[in-house]
């Protein structure tokens, strides 16, 4: 398959996921649009090297997360304030508050949680929210499945605290 047709296929299949992924990394709509464009451009360029060493999905997510992570790392003020899943898990219940009243509020709360996380943890939570299993997350991130499993377990605990029982709906 050519570079263009691979990109077409990826954009058709994962376009919405990439949009959501960009939201996990950039709050500002203008900057998010630029980031999304950057992800698409890098994705297209990367397909010149696509050699089927992994699935199209793994490839797409790796490229997208790597571009978005670079975007976060360049913003030093933001980078310095990021915390790990472990930090959030060990925090007292002050973040939890009451359960969200509407879907919009719940989405805002979820986005806020994601954007506080360090890149690697952010990649895992986004993959988890996109219904990926530990093996797929492991292929994308390069973490061992055991490490991913441990992180996902923590994510579920946090989501349960923030959203109620829904945080436990995991495969």
């Amino acid at each position: 398959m050519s570079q263009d047709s691979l990109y077409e296929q990826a954009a058709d299949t994962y376009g919405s996921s990439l949009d959501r992924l960009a939201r996990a990394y950039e709050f500002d709509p203008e900057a998010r649009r630029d980031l999304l464009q950057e992800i698409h451009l890098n994705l297209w360029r990367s397909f010149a090297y696509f050699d089927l060493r992994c699935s199209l999905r793994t490839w797409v997510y790796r490229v997208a997360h790597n571009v978005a992570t670079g975007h976060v790392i360049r913003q030093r003020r933001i980078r310095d304030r990021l915390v790990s899943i472990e930090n959030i898990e060990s925090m007292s219940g002050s973040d939890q508050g009451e359960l969200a009243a509407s879907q919009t509020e719940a989405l805002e709360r979820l986005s806020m949680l994601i954007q506080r996380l360090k890149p690697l943890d952010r990649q895992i939570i986004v993959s988890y929210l996109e219904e990926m299993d530990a093996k797929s997350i492991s292929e994308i991130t390069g973490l061992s499945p055991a490490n991913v499993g441990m992180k996902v377990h923590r994510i579920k605990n946090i989501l349960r605290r923030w959203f109620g029982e829904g945080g436990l709906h995991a495969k």
Partner: protein
Amino acid sequence: MPSEFPVNDPRNIWQNQHTEAFKMSADELRRKAQQRERKSRFEAAYTIIAGLILFVFFTRTFSRAHELAPRIGFGVLSFWGIYVAYQACKRIWHGRLAPDATLNTTLQSYRSELEKRRDYAQYIWREAGLTFCFLGMALVIVPALIKSLDAPRLMVNFVPFFVLLAIWCAVFFPMRKRNRRKLQQEIEELGVFEGGNRS
């Protein structure tokens, strides 16, 4: 907006948020990639021109200087101009994306980005040839400073320069050290996961 999904199911909330259909055409992608390459070549070209201007300026000053130390200083500074132009020349053909820049696992890529940030100052120092710049400036300034010891009023002229230099050193080095320490700490945290992968 009516709530179609339970507000306590984060996966549903995440997946059913409004998204825009974003896709770039092949022409648009090519045009963007070409624009990017052109921009990076222009930037390199500007640096080459700036380097050559510095070279011409310092060579002229070199030929007019009479004393040995400032003469060597201007010689070093003119070499610095050439070095800057040479580094920009090397960069000019490197506008394209490196194959491994986006294809590594996210852990490898994250680590390499952090390492790049950690080593940034060192890299910039080498890339911009700042050793030549500071050595040349020292050779030009120090003899003038020594001369002014006999005339303290001349010495006053150097005060603003040294005050600014002292402020810059007092702010820059501790900040850099703190930043490097933070980045190193984060790299070491990633090392724990990499170790976990090997075991």
